């Protein structure tokens, strides 16, 4: 164990953190603009993974086509959920708990539809050749090309999303709606359109996160969205709900934290890995009940 090992784990953690960061943004965006927890976001992630898996395995598509397929599939899934579940529910019965339970129902339903069609077994996600290599630095550090790819793509996306949210009219409008949907309407913002946009962006990011997960962990199965989704949601809460940069940062904190925690933990204790995330959450919520950064909603 030493510096080298630490840096090795650092890269692993950042890679895992990237996956969580992209997911967390999806959760926090939807919550910001609609005030609801999209329980089914994990399933959108899973559907994205399956889309790229099927395209690559069954349709002999290239990796990049698979990636586009993941994004497309995830976005379609997200829009479908909005159209069939959230739209009607918010219109007819908008109470927080009702929507929450409906959201959970959507998650359960989607997950089991895929169990029905594909069975609950794990399938191996193929890593493309160009990402399979390992770079060895002069100091003896082993860098997986796939990790670098994940970091690069996530980095670009995060910067783009942050710029979008901060500087474009539409991005600012999304932040405005999160704070005061009524006032936003009064300046002419059509919240229905922006809601769809939030779903599209959030789901698209989930699709990319799904491919990253696929090449990183090598597995897809219908229940994958559930656990990872939960971690992504925790990141969103941790970062201050509705706060997009916050969610991303929190995603990295959890990713890094969990990997480093396990890496430096005596092996006999490794079963406690999932607890790290929760312990962190409880700790932070105890000190700062609204999350690390300022939530993007009106605080009464």
């Amino acid at each position, binding site marked *: 164990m030493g510096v080298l090992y630490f840096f090795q784990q650092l890269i692993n953690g950042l890679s895992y953190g990237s996956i969580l960061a992209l997911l967390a943004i999806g959760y926090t965006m939807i919550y910001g603009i609609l005030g609801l927890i999209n329980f089914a976001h994990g399933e959108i992630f899973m559907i994205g993974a399956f889309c790229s898996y099927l395209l690559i395995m069954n349709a002999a598509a290239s990796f990049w086509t698979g990636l586009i397929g993941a994004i497309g599939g995830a976005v379609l899934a997200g829009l479908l959920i909005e159209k069939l579940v959230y739209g009607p529910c918010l219109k007819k019965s908008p109470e927080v708990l009702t929507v929450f339970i409906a959201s959970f129902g959507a998650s359960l339903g989607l997950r089991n539809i895929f169990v029905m069609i594909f069975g609950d077994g794990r399938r191996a996600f193929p890593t493309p050749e160009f990402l399979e290599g390992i770079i060895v630095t002069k100091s003896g550090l082993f860098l997986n090309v796939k990790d670098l790819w994940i970091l690069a793509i996530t980095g670009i996306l995060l910067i783009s999303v942050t710029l979008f949210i901060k500087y474009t009219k539409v991005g*600012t409008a999304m932040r*405005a709606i999160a*704070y005061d949907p009524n006032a936003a309407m009064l300046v*002419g913002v059509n919240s229905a359109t922006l809601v769809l946009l939030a779903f599209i962006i959030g789901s698209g990011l989930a699709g990319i996160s799904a491919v990253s997960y696929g090449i990183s962990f090598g597995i897809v199965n219908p229940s994958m969205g559930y656990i990872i989704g939960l971690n992504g949601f925790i990141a969103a809460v941790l970062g201050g709900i509705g706060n997009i940069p916050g969610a991303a940062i929190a995603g990295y904190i959890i990713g890094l934290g969990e990997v480093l925690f396990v890496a430096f933990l005596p092996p006999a204790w490794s079963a406690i890995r999932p607890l790290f995330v929760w312990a962190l959450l409880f700790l932070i919520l105890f000190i700062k009940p609204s999350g690390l950064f300022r939530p993007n909603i*009106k605080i009464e």
Partner: protein
Amino acid sequence: MLKLNHIIAGYGKAEVLHDINLEVKEGEVVALVGPNGAGKTTTIRCITGELSVTKGTILYKGKDITSLPPYKIVPLGIGCSPEGRNIFGNLSVYENLKMGGYLLKEKALYQEQLEWVYQLFPKLWDRRDQLAESLSGGEQQMLAIGRAVMTRPQLLLLDEPSLGLAPVVVDQIYEKIEEISQQGSSILLVEQNVRLALEISSRAYVMESGQIHLSGDSASLAKDSYVEETYLGVR
């Protein structure tokens, strides 16, 4: 410019407005005054489309806007500074104004308007990068009005601009409202401060319990004995 005909509206089963008729002519400043809970804000909400009207019509420049949602009202040239200001606390002052100009397509016009608002409210320029949350009450009100006039609306709806503000600040704000009116906007002003409202407006409506109790030109209303006793505290 604006005409409300026989408006009946309410929340759920509770009817709040019982047959409201009012009118704002081009270039006018019209005041809508009355006690708390009279239905003044409800009236504004009907105009902006936030609240659905049960019966009656709202005409703007001859066009029926009764059932239009808010985001379709604004492009027609109507701006609103709602009760409680409702600025976007998580955005900066500049971003709030940017939101005000959300519908402005041409960059040149947007820049022009932005400069005009900064000129009108120099304090907003000073604080342009500050989070709107951190502004004082008076500054938030200026921001709300500034945001509302970014589209250079022909009809400006102001709901309780003096609410919760110190008299000095209120005077400043009313100066600016006067300026905006002189630039050509018609204004419908909802106010609890009747004296101020009647000073700045040419006509006024007195609303009580969801009905128009009195109406007429402001100068005469100010001298009306009922108004004097009930709202101006003159015996």
